[in-house]
């Protein structure tokens, strides 16, 4: 079995004249990851994916899929890899089934039953005889997943799979991605829909102006930005006076509540202090930061795409 990581990009650079679209990007997607590749529009996500798939040549650096570089070994580098960049594209004058048969033939052929299977997975079997030109955007997205599944991939690269879908279509697509991940497929998901990444992914990379500014576990990222605790009490002024001198606790007042910083033990001691002083605690909740807030902080306010939020 190939022990190499599904995706390893090292020092990936793509220049178009003076413009640096991707600037020394390092990416590692591990087996079993649902890896979110986040960035504002034009940050370099799609260009990176194109280099991974061998569609464009890096100016510098290398991209390896399961240890194979598309520029070195050609189409063989894509064994066990499937997906689409900038949305799946098909021949509009052919039926959905014929499109899949064509792609299956390019992969060495597949029995009709296998094509039926993947059509069933994406719930398109009833429309398989219709020309793709008459398909809705959502149906084309699902056909794109079916085309990818035909290759029995171990790694799936999906570029903005829910863009342009209605809420029900988004829900279905996310459900499908979850199911595929549960089936053991490693997924690299490029998206600017932050809620989607937060829902689906275990690891993320954030790219801004061609440079990766964060790569790691999503939960660690969120935890690192956690803002302590928020406390409401029956006597907020007296509580503040007591907790200011509480060992291990940093307290600050803010609009009728206190913001507390401290570890779990110090926080537990603080609640006892308040209880002994006869002050009732009406609310004590951890302060969390959403991925969107973090993203805006890290990218200096460049929105991923506010209009695309579900």
């Amino acid at each position: 079995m190939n022990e190499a990581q599904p995706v390893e990009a090292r020092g990936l650079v793509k220049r178009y004249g003076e413009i640096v679209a991707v600037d020394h990007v390092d990416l590692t997607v591990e087996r079993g990851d649902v890896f979110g590749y986040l960035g504002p529009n034009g940050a370099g996500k799609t260009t990176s994916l194109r280099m991974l798939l061998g569609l464009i040549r890096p100016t510098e650096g290398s991209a390896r899929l399961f240890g194979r570089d598309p520029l070195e070994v050609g189409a063989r580098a894509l064994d066990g890899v499937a997906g689409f960049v900038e949305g799946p594209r098909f021949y509009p004058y052919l039926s959905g089934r014929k499109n899949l048969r064509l792609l299956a033939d390019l992969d060495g052929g597949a029995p009709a039953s296998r094509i039926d299977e993947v059509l069933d997975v994406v719930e398109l079997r009833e429309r398989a005889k219709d020309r793709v030109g008459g398909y809705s955007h959502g149906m084309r997205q699902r056909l794109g997943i079916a085309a990818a599944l035909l290759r029995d991939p171990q790694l799936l690269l999906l570029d903005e799979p829910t863009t342009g879908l209605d809420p029900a279509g988004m829900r279905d697509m996310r459900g499908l991605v979850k199911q595929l991940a549960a089936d053991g497929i490693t997924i690299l998901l490029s998206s600017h829909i932050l809620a989607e990444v937060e829902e689906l992914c275990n690891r993320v990379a954030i790219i801004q102006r061609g440079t990766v500014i964060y790569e790691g576990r999503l939960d660690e990222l969120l935890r690192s930005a956690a803002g302590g605790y928020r406390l409401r009490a029956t006597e907020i002024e007296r509580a503040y006076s007591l907790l200011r001198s509480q060992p291990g606790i940093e307290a600050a007042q803010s609009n009728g509540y206190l913001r507390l910083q401290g570890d779990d033990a110090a926080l537990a001691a603080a609640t006892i202090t308040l209880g002994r002083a006869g002050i009732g605690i009406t609310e004590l909740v951890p302060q969390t930061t959403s991925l969107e807030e973090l993203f805006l902080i890290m990218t200096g306010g460049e929105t991923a795409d506010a209009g695309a939020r579900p």
Partner: protein
Amino acid sequence: MTSVYKWELLKLLAQKRTYLGLGTAMLVPLIFVTVLVLKTGGPNDIPLGRYIRETGLATPFVVLFFMSIWAFPLLTALVAGDIVAAESHNGTLKTILTRSRERGEIFAGKALAALTYTAAILLAMGTVGLLAAGFAWGFAPLTSLSGSTVSFGHGLGLLGASLAVYLLPMAGIAAFGILLSTITRNSAASVVGTLMWALLMQLLGVLPGTEPIRPYLLATQFDAWHGFLRTPADWVPVVRALWVCALYIGVPLAAGYVVFVRSDVAGE
């Protein structure tokens, strides 16, 4: 490569422009025969033109002459200029390039399919022209360009050989169309550019002072079949068409291959 070629043909068969090309190639000889049946006079100034009503065999040869000017170059460019550019524009190029085939295979399949279509329109014209004219004027022996009489069976063989040698410059036009299609990734620019190139070749052939290069122009090779219609056969233009067209076909295809294999497939 076989499956790539098969699917390129199936894609062509699913597109209207293919039928537009085939239909036009069949319609031109039909119109030609219909007009000559209804009217007197004929194309007496062109090779075999004066024998047009003597036998159905003469018509395909005469139509070959007329269609070489712009109709066949246009019909050839229509598909060859589109075969890569359309896929790039529709985004399907990246779809097929992320499967298990090397880029070289995809290019070869496309080039073969475009050349097959080119042969098909030529064959369609020849067949329809022969049948239509045969029904109008019969299938009598043919008078060759040397004035000798050629039996119908032998004339049919000469027609086949002539179509085969006529295919060479058409393949040269197709190869140029494929190159433009690969470089520009723009169907309209490739189709128009290919047609312009074919017309330029013809223009060069009639301009004064171009006599030394005329035998090596692509347009000149459209007349190479005349060699078969002489008694004895004149192989000089045929052999020259073989090697001259090999260059006109090979160089653009080789350049197109290199561009196709090495170029970035970015957004459309």
